[in-house]
């Protein structure tokens, strides 16, 4: 048996909001006790108070969470400045949380700690998939995810999104049980009888001339075409700083397909370099990209349809998680709620669903069979249900 419930409140008062959320969950649980959960919160809440309330209600809950750029749930649809909680009850699926701290100092140690904690007495082979909500601003997401992949020995598919702070790019928070953390890597590991399907799509298209990355250190690009990297953006955006909604299409040597790398928005234009959420290789060809609403919504639909198609036909989806890039919300504006409407329209029956707008998405890449991949500007869908 797997039971998934969701609570969601947009009350700005932290105490009232979590009370409301827990009451909704209690109603749906009907006496069942959850073993794990995911908490998504906007930036202005009193997280300690919220986490303590959850712990009081469900002592020992295996909980992870983080701050967002907008929350989605089957209870309220798209909201900003809200709190959403998803809880999992099951006697056949085993879920356990772990966290690694100071990820910017030592990503390998942080990943190893998080996985060791989340594994508990289980073997790695038992793990079906992982969900993670890592820090986005202090470390290169690609490096962090490489460490995570190494800790999972490349065997476990990982889904999730980088925590966000409502387009402020100052500080994000991660949650582990009752702890409010920064610069951390919280992880939930799922084992047992759980089936899943996933999809990922973007909608961004290249525009303008190409350039070559001539000087780069991990996720900091110093020069493009031997000129300060900022000039590449200034050709199109004038004196405005590089923005997340205009990521670079990155073409690696001899490759005609591209992946996207978005700027973290944390640099000063006068420095000339640009920090991205993920790494770029030296010598890669880059090109600015842009998207419009229709392309974004079409990509969301594609992502959900992929997940439905890849879900095992012997099982039935019982819940869904969505990880959508905050740049999508930025461009969609008041149409953001349509992205969730598209998701709902694709499902055969209403599911308990939750998701958030992230600073970067994490999902395996179906085409290359890579288990852990970092994306920008995408919509990631994860459907799950009890395996039959």
């Amino acid at each position, binding site marked *: 048996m797997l039971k998934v419930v969701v609570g969601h409140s*947009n*009350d*700005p*008062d932290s105490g*009232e909001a979590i009370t409301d959320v827990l009451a909704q969950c209690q109603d749906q649980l009907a006496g069942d006790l959850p073993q794990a959960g995911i908490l998504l919160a906007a930036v202005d809440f009193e997280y300690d108070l919220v986490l303590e309330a959850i712990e009081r209600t469900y002592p020992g809950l295996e909980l992870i969470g983080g701050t967002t750029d907008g929350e989605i749930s089957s209870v309220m649809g798209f909201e*900003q*400045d809200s709190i959403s909680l998803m809880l999992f009850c099951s006697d056949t699926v085993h879920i356990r949380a772990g966290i690694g701290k100071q990820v910017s100092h030592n990503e390998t140690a942080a990943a190893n700690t998080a996985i060791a904690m989340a594994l508990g007495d289980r073997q790695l082979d038992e793990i079906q998939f992982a969900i993670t909500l890592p820090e986005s601003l202090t470390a290169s997401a690609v490096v962090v995810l490489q460490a995570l992949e190494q800790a999972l020995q490349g065997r476990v598919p990982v889904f999730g999104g980088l925590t966000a702070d*409502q*387009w402020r790019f100052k500080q994000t928070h991660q949650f582990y049980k009752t702890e409010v953390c920064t610069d951390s890597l919280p992880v939930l590991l799922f084992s047992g009888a759980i089936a899943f399907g996933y999809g990922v799509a973007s909608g961004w298209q290249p*525009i*303008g*001339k190409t350039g070559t990355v001539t000087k780069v250190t991990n996720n900091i690009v110093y020069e493009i075409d031997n000129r300060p990297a900022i000039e590449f953006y200034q*050709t*199109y*955006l*004038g004196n*405005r700083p590089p*923005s997340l*909604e*205009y990521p670079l299409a990155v073409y690696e040597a001899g490759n005609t397909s591209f992946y996207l790398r978005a700027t973290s928005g944390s640099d000063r234009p006068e420095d000339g370099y640009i920090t991205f959420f993920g790494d770029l290789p030296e010598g890669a060809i880059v090109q*600015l990209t*842009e998207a419009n609403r229709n392309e974004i919504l079409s990509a969301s639909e594609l992502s959900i349809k992929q997940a439905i198609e890849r879900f095992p036909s012997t099982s039935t989806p019982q819940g869904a998680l969505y990880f959508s890039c905050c740049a999508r919300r*930025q*461009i969609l*504006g008041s149409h953001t709620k349509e992205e969730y409407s598209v998701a709902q329209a694709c499902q055969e029956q209403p599911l308990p669903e939750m998701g958030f707008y992230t600073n970067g998405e994490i999902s395996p890449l179906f085409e290359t069979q890579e288990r852990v991949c970092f994306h920008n500007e995408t919509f990631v869908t994860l459907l799950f249900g009890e395996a039959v």
Partner: protein
Amino acid sequence: MNDNVSVKATVTQTSIEELEARLKTLERENRILQKQLQRSYADREQLEAATDRKETLLRNALDELQASQASLEERQAALNKLQHAQAQLVQTEKMSSLGQLVAGLAHEINNPINFIYGNLKHLQDYAEDLLETLKVYRQHAPEIDQQLLPIEPDELEFIAQDTVQILQSMQIGATRICDIVSSLRNFSRLDEAKSKEGNIHDGIDNSLMILRYRLEQNDRRPAIRVIKNYEDLPPIECCHGQLNQVFMNLLINAIDAIDLNGYDPKDCDPSEQPPQIEIQTRTIDQSEIQISISDNGPGIPEELKSRLFDPFFTTKPIGQGTGLGLAISHEIIVQQHQGAIAIDSELGRGTTFTITLPRYPTSYPSCNV
């Protein structure tokens, strides 16, 4: 009494609880609305910034596109110019060599033919005198022994008559050679470095004279009939050598087009129009004249028309066409003479090239082609 008080107290308590609940709900709604208002302001600012970025991006992308398009057009224009220059160079070299060859040939033939042509008259006079003298001898000395004569008297009569005819044929042949030499010299016009006032018809006729062998019947078709509808044109100022080149190119194309029909004179349908080229000239007004050269060949497909004047574009088999004839003709008519050249073609019906020329162009760069 006490019961009433108790009921009232309960009612009041319930009302207070309801009011408190209502108040709580209102407070909650107020909090949410206030937060949404704050969010709305923040969103509006973000949206304005996003719109500003989008506008700038699109404007710059558009500028870049326009610049790149302009650069592409410039490059295309430069390429066209280069191709024209290259075509002109090739054609100049070709025509220069051909002109020198023709002029040299004309000069070399001119001297011996002048010996022949100039002396034929004397030869005719001498022959007439000799024959007249022989006639007198025969009349006044009939007693001469016939055995002493190298030919029979009947033969002598035949030789006398045939000599006159041979000399007349030689006269005609020599005159024709003189005409051809004159046409060749006129066609090449190497001696002319400046434009001159002159008759267009001479240039067309010279070209036809040079192409005469190609107009004759061959094993694929009967002779091409040339119909000339010449109006009485006023003289125009032009580079005759250059215009002759244009007439030559257009006439060669017309003949090539007719040859493409694969006309078989043995299976010739009498009702079918025989191959023909029609040349029409007319005065448009005081300042312009027009020349049309039409053939009844297969015509030109619509999709090829726009490329006909491109340098190096040809539909002829490899080795038969350079693709320069029409490009150079266009250059000579439009650039050098400030005229126009147009094409009218219908599949299965034929093609007409129409040249319009000003009688007095404002300037000529050079007549040296």
